[in-house]
């Protein structure tokens, strides 16, 4: 299962994207924040998979 933090980041990124059309004058600022959240979603997923792989290799799973 994916890290819950990844879902959280994904949700926050989507919330930013949903609000973005209300403030077209801050397009780049809002898109940057959404990108940060999406990057964290990927980062947390990779960290979780890596931790599971390490645990499996060490015989904990």
């Amino acid at each position, binding site marked *: 299962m994916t890290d819950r*933090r990844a879902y959280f980041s994904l949700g926050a990124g989507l919330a*930013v994207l949903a*609000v973005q059309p*209300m403030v077209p004058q801050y397009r780049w*600022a809002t898109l940057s924040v959404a990108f*940060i*959240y999406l990057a*964290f979603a990927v980062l947390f997923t990779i960290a979780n998979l890596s931790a599971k792989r390490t645990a499996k290799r060490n015989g904990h799973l």
Partner: protein
Amino acid sequence: MEIGAIIVILFALAFDFTNGFHDAANSIATVVSTRVLSPRFAVIWAAFFNFVAFLIFSTHVADTIAKDVVAQSALTVGVIFAGLMGAIAWNLLTFWLGLPTSSSHALVGGMAGAAVVRDGFGVLISEGLRTIGAFIVLSPLIGLALGLILTVAIQWAFHRRTDIERLNKGFRRGQLASAAAFSLGHGGNDAQKTMGIILAVLIAAGNLPPDAEVPLWVVLSAHTAIGLGTLFGGWRIVKTMGFKLTRLQPAGGVAAETAAAATLFFASAQGIPVSTTHTITGAIVGVGAARRLSAVRWRVAGRVVWAWIITIPGAAAIAAVFSLLVGAMG
């Protein structure tokens, strides 16, 4: 200057004081919860930086409040008075309930409610309200994103260090700077809301032309009022922000305050009135969530979000009642 305008200006400064009392507690929540400063020194520290913020920020936020929420034709001295009373009543109610709601949105809601009940929805300026509404959601999310980045960066930079005591000592010193930066951001954004109200009153009373800038005496008096409010700051909200949302270490405190300060600096430079409460809450949640989601006490965070949702309609409804009363009294 007419007596009505003077009374409203005094109420605006009283609102600023309650804003300091209610919101500025956020400036010191993390610095107190990590035991970097004693509560008494933390309050003095925050009040000082609240006051000197006028040296750094221009008055774009004040212009937004005075000119971009309600059409100037509808902003009479009576309407502004009713809006202020709605915001003050809402602030006191939520302070009593211990809810970290937004004084800023109480003010916007109060002004909108007081004007709408007199002249209908046509007096609201949709573009200004849309931007403020969007940043109700965006300011905590920007604070949260920056809190996440800073926490992960700090963890990555110092993960090999084993001398935790020494590291914590360094971050404790760093927190003095980050708390000062956050207090500057708070003073810069929140004191300007009062300046905006006073500017609107001076324009409505005919003491200034519609395109006037904020006079220096207004800037100084607003910063003095918010600084004094901080000095007499309340402790119920400090408890919610600092202790209940998540447990903070000095490094987390630095990350949360720096993230919130950066968000407030951006908003003030752009002339967007945002809630310092929303911003620091988002940043604290970001710091907690970077460790693990269960580090955040979601029930408390949910209560905070619920308070955000009801602030504008709640303050608007109270202000509408005041507006009708003021209208009935002529």
